[in-house]
C-alpha cells in the first residue's frame, strides 16, 4: 500500500518532512509530490481512509494546502493525489475506474506523444486505457505501452526512497521575544523532542548539540555542548542546556531558536561482573555541568602534568581528555606537598646562610630544621623564565613547609603533609 501527498509548489521541504514522519521510505516524485510506503501504518492509524485523513490533518497542521491519496500501487497513488483534491482512497482492482476521469497530462507524455494522442482525440486516462494494447505498441512503441499501463492504474514500479541527508536541525521563530530562561526552556524542550524523534527513527544518537539564538538586538548567541558518548536523553539534554545557558545567558531577548544535533551511532556497552565501577557517562555529564555551574568552568576537570620542570606546572583538562603523562622528576620526589595557591609572601630571617625565622600569613615560627637551598631555573630561552632557591624547613610548631626565594622575595610554596 502506498500513499501520496501533493501540495502547492514551494513547500517541498515541508512536504518531505511530513512524509518522513510517517515512513522512512519516501520518494519525492516531483517538487510538489511525495509518495511513501504506507505498509504497516494501518496498525497505527487504522483503515486506509483513516491513514489518508491523518496525512491530510498533519499537512494542514504544518500549513500545507495538500491533497492525499492511498492506493495499492505507487503510480496510482501519485496520480490520484495530483488529480483529485482532498483525500482519496483508491480500492484495489478499481484503479482504472477511479483514475479514468483524470487528464492525460498527469502521465507526463513527451510533447510529440501528447500531440499524437490529442490528434487521436485521447485526452483522459479512460480513453487511453480503452485502446488495444497491441495496436498501441505498434504505433507508439514501449513508451506508449508504459503510459497505457499507468492509465489503467496497473503500474508496478517500486518505490525509490530518497536518502535523507543526515542533517538534524530544528528551528522556531518566536511570536514575541523571550527574556527569561524558563520559557526558553519550554521552546527548547519542544525542539529537543523533535530532534530526538528524528534521531531515534534513524537509530542514531548525538554527541554534539549546537544551539543558536537570534537576539532582539540582531545579534546571535551560540552555544555548543559536546558529550563524551552519544546520548539520546531529552531530559539530560534539557538540563545541560539549562545549566549552560544559566552560566552563559544570552545578552538580549531571544526571537529565534535553532537547535542542531550532530548524529552519531549510539553507544553499545556490555557490563560485566568484574568491570570496575565508573560513573554512567550521561549522569557524569550532568554532574560535571552542575559542578561547573557551582565552582566555575575552569575549576572542574582532570589535571595533566606539563612537560616542564617549572614547579607546580599543570593544566586542567576536561575530564576524559587528560593524557597520561609522567614527569621525569616525579620519581625523585619524596614528599607530599599541599600547595598554597597563590604562593604566600613571607618574611624570612637568615643567619649563616640558613633561614632561622619565617613569618607569613598563617605560617609563623622559628626554623628548627632546614634543607636547601635547591636552586632551580628553566625556560630562560622563553619570555617567561624562572629561577628560584627552594628550602625545606621545619618550624617550631612541628609543621614542615617548602619556601623559596625568587628575585629577592620570599614565598611559602606549600606544606609537606
Amino acid at each position, binding site marked *: 500500500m502506498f500513499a501520496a501527498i501533493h501540495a502547492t509548489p514551494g513547500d517541498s521541504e515541508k512536504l518531505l518532512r511530513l512524509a518522513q514522519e510517517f515512513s522512512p521510505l519516501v520518494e519525492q516524485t516531483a517538487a510538489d509530490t511525495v509518495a511513501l510506503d504506507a505498509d504497516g501504518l494501518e496498525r497505527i492509524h487504522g483503515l486506509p481512509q483513516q491513514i489518508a485523513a491523518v496525512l491530510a490533518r498533519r499537512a494542514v497542521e504544518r500549513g500545507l494546502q495538500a491533497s492525499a491519496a492511498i492506493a495499492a500501487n505507487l503510480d496510482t497513488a501519485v496520480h490520484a493525489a495530483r488529480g483529485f483534491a482532498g483525500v482519496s482512497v483508491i480500492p484495489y482492482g478499481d484503479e482504472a475506474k477511479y483514475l479514468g476521469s483524470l487528464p492525460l497530462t498527469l502521465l507526463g507524455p513527451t510533447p510529440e506523444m501528447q500531440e499524437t494522442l490529442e490528434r487521436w482525440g485521447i485526452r483522459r486516462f479512460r480513453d487511453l486505457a480503452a485502446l488495444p494494447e497491441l495496436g498501441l505498441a505498434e504505433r507508439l512503441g514501449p513508451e506508449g505501452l508504459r503510459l497505457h499501463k499507468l492509465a489503467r492504474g496497473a503500474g508496478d514500479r517500486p518505490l525509490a526512497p530518497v536518502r535523507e541527508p543526515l542533517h538534524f536541525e530544528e528551528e522556531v521563530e518566536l511570536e514575541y521575544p523571550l527574556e527569561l530562561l524558563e520559557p526558553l526552556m519550554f521552546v527548547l524542550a519542544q525542539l529537543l523532542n523533535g530532534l530526538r524523534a528524528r534521531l531515534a527513527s534513524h537509530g542514531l544518537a548525538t554527541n554534539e548539540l549546537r544551539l543558536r539564538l537570534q537576539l532582539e538586538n540582531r545579534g546571535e548567541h551560540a552555544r555548543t555542548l559536546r558529550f563524551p558518548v552519544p546520548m539520546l536523553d531529552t531530559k539530560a539534554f534539557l538540563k545541560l542546556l539549562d545549566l549552560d545557558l544559566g552560566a552563559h545567558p544570552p545578552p538580549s531577548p531571544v526571537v529565534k531558536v535553532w537547535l542542531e544535533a550532530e548524529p552519531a551511532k549510539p553507544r553499545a556497552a556490555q557490563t560485566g561482573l568484574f568491570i570496575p565501577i565508573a560513573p554512567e557517562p550521561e549522569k557524569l555529564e550532568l554532574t560535571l555541568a552542575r*559542578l561547573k555551574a557551582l565552582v566555575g568552568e575552569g575549576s572542574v576537570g582532570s589535571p595533566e602534568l606539563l612537560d616542564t620542570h617549572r614547579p607546580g606546572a599543570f593544566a586542567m583538562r576536561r575530564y576524559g581528555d*587528560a593524557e597520561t603523562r609522567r614527569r621525569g*622528576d616525579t620519581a*625523585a*620526589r619524596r614528599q607530599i606537598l*599541599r*600547595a598554597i*595557591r597563590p604562593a604566600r609572601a613571607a618574611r624570612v630571617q637568615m643567619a649563616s646562610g640558613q633561614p632561622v625565622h619565617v613569618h607569613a600569613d598563617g605560617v609563623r615560627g622559628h626554623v628548627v630544621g632546614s634543607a636547601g637551598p*635547591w636552586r632551580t631555573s628553566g625556560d630562560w630561552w622563553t619570555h617567561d623564565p624562572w629561577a628560584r632557591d627552594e628550602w625545606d624547613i*621545619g618550624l617550631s610548631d612541628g609543621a614542615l613547609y617548602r619556601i623559596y626565594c625568587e628575585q629577592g622575595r620570599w614565598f611559602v610554596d606549600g606544606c609537606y603533609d
Partner: protein
Amino acid sequence: MAAVALGRDFEFKVAGQEVCPTGVAQVDAAVGGLPQGCLTELYGPASSGRTSLMLAAMAQSTSRENVCALVDASDAFDPASAAAVGVRLERLLWVRCGGNAEHALKAADLLVQGGGFGLVVMDLADTPVITARRISMTSWFRLRRAVEHTPTVLLVVEQQPHAKTCASLTLEMRRERAVWSAAGDELHSLKSGAGCPAQAAILPHNRLLRGIRVHADRRKPVPAIAASFESRW
C-alpha cells in the same frame, strides 16, 4: 602484634562490608581499609600525613581502574605529588572550590549522588576549623545517606573531626617527627638520579628532608592505636 589484633577486631565489626585498601600497609594491617558506602574521617594538624594517606588511597583506587573524585576546598592539591605516589591523574576528577567550604560540600553531595566513583575525597584540611564547624549535622547526615549502599568510599580530610556519628571510621593523624638525612648522606644518589632537575645545584653541606614519621590512631568505632608509618615515597 597489638595492631594486628585490633585490625581483626575491626574487621569483625564491619563484617559483610567491603573495604578498600589505603595503600599504606601498616594502616591496612591495622584497620583493614576504608569501608565502602561509609563516611570516613581523616583528621590531624598540618604535616601529620593526612595528605599522604589520602593520596595513597587515591593511588590504590585508580590503580584498580576506579574513578576518583577530589573536592578540594582550598585548592591545595599538588598533581605532581599525586603522580609521584602513583595516582593516575586521567582517572581523577578534581573539583577546585577556591576556599569555599560550602561549594565543597555541595560538590561532594553532587558527586556522591551522581554515583559511580570508587573514592570521593572532600579535602577540608586547610579550611579554618571555625568554618568547618559551621557545617551542619544535617549536611553530614545527607552525605552519609547518599553514600550508603553504594560501593563508593567517602573520605573527608580535615583538621578536627566534625561528622561525629555520621562517620563510620575516624582516623586521627599525628606527626611524630621529621626525618632529616645527615649531611651529605644522599648526595651521591641525587647526583646520579635521573629525576634530579636538570639545573639544580646541590651544595655539599646540605641535607635532605627524607620524610615525616606519622601516627594514625583509630578514634572510631573503637578508639585504638592503629599504625605508625613514615610518609615517604
